[in-house]
């Protein structure tokens, strides 16, 4: 019998071919989630570059859920990943958590759920995932209505927007997102941060801290306590601040390549190209704003 001897190149080629075949089979199994031989699932939920193919057994999922949590809570913490967070006030005596879960298909929706837990006087509302490697999960958006008595709102999201509106005055707020935007009104002692989103606010109290990397900061200061401070910083966005007429603060505004302007009468201590330091009134508080490539403007309300 005539046997053909395989050269090292043949062996390399055949090995590579077998590896590629295994990768193709593996990718089919992973994409179809191992259901390609199951007759019931003969048309699995596929998500490709073109969008999604609806499954005959369901397709995209949207579930809304309303939960009311009673208790004397002074702090509310809301954590989402891709979904948005919207917080508002309510005259009811309990916290109303309305969640909207969306997913491409039921299997993905099963991987994410809402967890609500009480930690003393703090209520934590959180989006929880059960990671499964090849299956995309759903997202949850929250609409939380908070009753009287809450003193702190602590909201975080990874890529969702955060909005706070119609809440009672005097509530401290700590809001952060990475790629979403932040918008709040009537914030007391506000700390807001976003990496690539815009920050909009109306604040009062002793402390204001707004940080963004590529988003702009656009806000209104209704009051700033004596000894208080307002720090606004962004890298490539601009800062626009409308301040109450009786603003009494030491100001430090600096931009690397943008314009700096202030509508208030300022006793200037240092003024260079894009830098302005001085005092408005007696300088009881501190306003510090900085950006690299944007402009800074402080105007009178």
């Amino acid at each position, binding site marked *: 019998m005539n046997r053909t001897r395989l050269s090292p190149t043949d062996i390399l080629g055949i090995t590579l071919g077998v*590896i590629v075949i295994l990768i193709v089979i593996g990718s089919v199994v992973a994409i179809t989630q191992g259901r390609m031989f199951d007759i019931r699932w003969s048309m699995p939920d596929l998500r490709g570059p073109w969008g999604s193919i609806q499954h005959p057994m369901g397709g995209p999922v949207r579930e809304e859920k309303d939960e009311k949590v009673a208790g004397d809570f002074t702090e509310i913490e809301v954590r989402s990943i891709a979904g948005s967070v919207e917080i508002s006030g309510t005259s009811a005596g309990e916290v109303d958590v309305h969640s909207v879960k969306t997913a491409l298909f039921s299997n993905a929706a099963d991987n994410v759920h809402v967890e609500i837990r009480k930690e003393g006087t703090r209520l934590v509302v959180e989006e929880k995932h059960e990671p499964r490697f090849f299956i995309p999960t759903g997202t949850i958006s929250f609409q939380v209505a908070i009753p009287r008595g809450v003193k702190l709102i602590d909201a975080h999201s*990874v890529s969702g927007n955060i909005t706070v509106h119609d809440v009672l005055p005097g509530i401290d707020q700590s809001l952060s997102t990475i790629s979403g935007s932040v918008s709040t009104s009537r914030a007391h002692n506000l700390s807001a941060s976003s990496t690539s989103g815009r920050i909009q606010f109306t604040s009062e109290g002793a402390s204001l801290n707004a940080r963004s990397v590529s988003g702009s900061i656009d806000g209104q200061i209704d009051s700033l306590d004596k000894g208080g401070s307002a720090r606004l910083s962004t890298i490539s966005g601009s800062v626009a601040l409308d301040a109450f007429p009786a603003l009494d603060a030491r100001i430090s505004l600096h931009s690397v390549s943008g314009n700096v302007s202030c509508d208030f009468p300022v006793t200037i201590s240092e003024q260079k190209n894009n830098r302005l330091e001085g005092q408005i009134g007696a300088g009881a508080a501190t306003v510090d704003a900085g950006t690299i490539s944007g402009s800074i403007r402080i105007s009178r309300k």
Partner: protein
Amino acid sequence: MSDLNAKLELAHKIAERKLAFIRHAISYLVVIIGLAIINNLAYQSEGPRYQWWLWVAFGWGIGVVSHFLSAFLYQSGSLVEKMAKRELEKMNESDKT
């Protein structure tokens, strides 16, 4: 002599096809591994990520597998030769009858 030349030419063609496949398969593996790394390491965020690179691995993989089959299984044109021989035999048989 002409038979030897024909064989040499065929051997050259086969070697070229095999090398082309090896280059194709290596570039496939490098790119797919790169995409899988980008998918899972870059843009770190909480929660599991969607494995979009599998679609590339699948689509391009079909192309590479066909290249493999043409380079190693139908490499020598033997299938064509065999079929041609069979057709010739059929013709001869029909001529006899």
